[in-house]
């Protein structure tokens, strides 16, 4: 009886330790979003589209709206390879207002712009006009010219 009891206690401690470590690791290192911002592909995104429009108006920048979902495996790859591409990342950070829409939560916004699946990037100007759409997990080679072109289009106005 004693052997079994010891084994059980050992496993219980093991499980508690495992639970504690993973819980805290996630809280500290693997945050996707809090109340105000989303953290995706090493970029910080607004969680509210309205807030995005305000900032866009003040700073005269286009808005990049990224539709994602936590269960979307292609999104993870898209974030790491395309959004995480150093050139793309610096353009997005400098010249865009970034808004992330979670498809599990922001279904209305997705419906309004006809976005049906993640990943999907929508480019808007501050007057809510759609400048371009990038559906699907495209590679950096496809994405870079689009971010450059949309930026230049807004600047030239």
């Amino acid at each position, binding site marked *: 009886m004693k052997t079994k009891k010891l084994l059980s206690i050992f496993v219980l401690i093991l499980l508690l330790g495992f639970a504690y470590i993973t819980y805290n690791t996630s809280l500290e290192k693997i945050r996707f979003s*809090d109340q105000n911002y989303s953290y995706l592909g090493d970029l910080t995104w607004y969680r509210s589209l309205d807030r995005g429009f305000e900032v866009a108006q003040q700073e005269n920048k286009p808005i990049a709206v990224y539709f994602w979902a936590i269960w979307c495996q292609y999104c993870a790859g898209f974030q790491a390879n395309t959004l995480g591409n150093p050139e793309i990342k610096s353009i997005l950070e400098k010249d865009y207002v970034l808004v992330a829409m979670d498809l599990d939560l922001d279904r209305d916004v997705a419906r309004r712009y006809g976005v049906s699946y993640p990943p999907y990037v929508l480019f808007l100007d501050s007057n809510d006009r759609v400048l371009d759409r990038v559906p699907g997990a495209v*590679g950096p080679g496809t994405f870079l010219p689009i971010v450059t072109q949309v930026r230049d289009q807004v600047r030239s106005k």
Partner: protein
Amino acid sequence: MVTFGDGLLYASAVAGVIALAGLLLKELKNSDVLKDLISPMILACTWLLTFAYLLLTYYFVAGDFTLEYVWQYSSRDLPLIYKISGAWAGQPGTYLLWVWVIFLSAAWLALTTKHATPLSRRTQIITLIIGIYFILITRVLTPFKTIYEGRPDLIGYIPPDGSGLNALLVNFWMIIHPPLMFIGYAAITIPFAAAIVYLLTKDDGWEELSRQWSRFTWLFLGMGIAVGGVWAYLVLGWGGFWAWDPVETASFIPWLTLTAYLHAAALHRKNRSTFSIAAPILAAVSFILVLYAAIVVRSGLFNSVHAFGEASTGTLLIISLFASALVSGGLGMRRYLEEPDKIEEDRGFWNKTSIFYVTLLVFVILAFVSFWGITYPVFIQLTQGLKVGVASDTKNFFNVWSYPFTLVLLLALGFCLNYSEKEKKKQKKILFIVAGLTIIAMLVRLDNFYVLDHNSPFWLREPEIYKLIGSISLLSIFPPLIYAGMAVADYLIRNLGATSKRARIKSTGLTMVHIAVVLILLGSIISSTREEKIEGINIPLSAKGELVDIGKGYAMKIVDFSTRSLTEAGGEAASSGDYTVQSVKLEVYKGASIIGSGTAEYLAGKSGSGTFPMVSSSITGTDVYVIFQGLGGGFVPLTLQIKPAINFVWIGIVLFAAGIILIMAVKTKKVKEG
């Protein structure tokens, strides 16, 4: 207004309550007032639910789109078989199926035991309570709701057509996946009920009463999960059969604890004092985890590709989950604190019971890893409003934490299967050697053959501890796999000489189930780490018949391209054409020789689209797998994957099923007490 279908549900609830009252009167007051009504009422209830289910199917086949549920999940242009399977495509229908199977179990229990013993009566009481509760849940969700309810302005309007079945569900595997799953969910009710009765009364017959039920549940749950995997592989184009999606993981958890239960029961039936608490608790936990799986599947709380949405039954299920957890936990605790009847002597660590106990614990650990991984992100989201991930890449969490325990499990399997007191010394020595080899193999550095894929973009972003476990070499799976495989072979040889035919059949079944474990692990590890993948292939349709080089030494040829409507030839099909299938016939070459051929399809339907990859298997176990994403701008977009050893997984799954069926076919003799 109460619809006819709802009327049937009410009537069945009344019949169920009368039967329950009869049993309770007998049990508590020893009164026979309603005794003669018990079995007839249970049967009546079962017939009413059967009728309700058939009625729902009839509505689907007839296309009665004034019912909201039918309107949501069906349409006129669907082939007949998908009209029938539409009945279990959504939440309300699956609960009706679930409750129907619970009462089929209750009826079976009534007919086989005739409620002759206190054990059978008490088990029936608990089964009925659960059954009636599920009638209530089904009624709340009711599949029989008309579109007029709450919309008086619609009265008189008859929708011309339904909104159609999601294209991903228009598939053979999706016809059988939900029924397998929910029959499994329902069948576990009896092992749970019997375990609770045992915890309450120490009635020894519980294990025997529920033995076949637990095996049956194990078979159906297991096959439900497997078929879900096959569907993901053949339809979703997830590129694999297992993705640690919260929903598939949730169904896997009770299967793990049920597996642990079957192992506990195997020893418990030989010696009643062995695992006298562990066994019933594992049975109870499996039932509770089934409820949890149902919550995960349908609550909308868990972010998953299985996005069914709607949280209406959540509360009712959560209540039932906490109630059953409290009851089982409390009773288990009571039994634990009681003076045991017989004190089991402690024979140290190296004996069969203790090693078996390690096996049970490893199953529990594996179940907990999966449970925790799908649960705590939701907990954090609900309590702190933060969205966190379990790892940079979700599947890494489950792979990292499950892997070490899988090794222990295989070692335990190898050791336990042929354990004998006489040869203990030699067996221990072999175990130590294998364990040593395993640890050495963990350290070998080979070209990207590790627990986590070092070439993945997520690798660098994972937390340190994940990297540490993630850099264990997968070579370490081979010593335990070979050890376990040899043990199974040894077991078969030892037992084939058994004199009784029943013993021979049973040990053949056990052999098949355990060798299946080896094959599935081998197949899944090799196929997921050694696969080759070429994405973004675009072949112009005009290149039909030409061999096109696609890189890495592979080439492809489009043999033919065609479009058809899914609906059988008929007047309606031409006009609607809502489910159109694009087929591309392909040949895949490596160098100059053909390695695979077949048809990849793309289905565009009313609600979304689906891909049906070309899967071309070979005798070596390698699959040539091509996903076709639908014709665009005159180009055929394709993804090619070469998946070695994947067929071991399918063979393993078939052996699992065949093995447990053989075991079920042999009734084990009742071991007399003392």
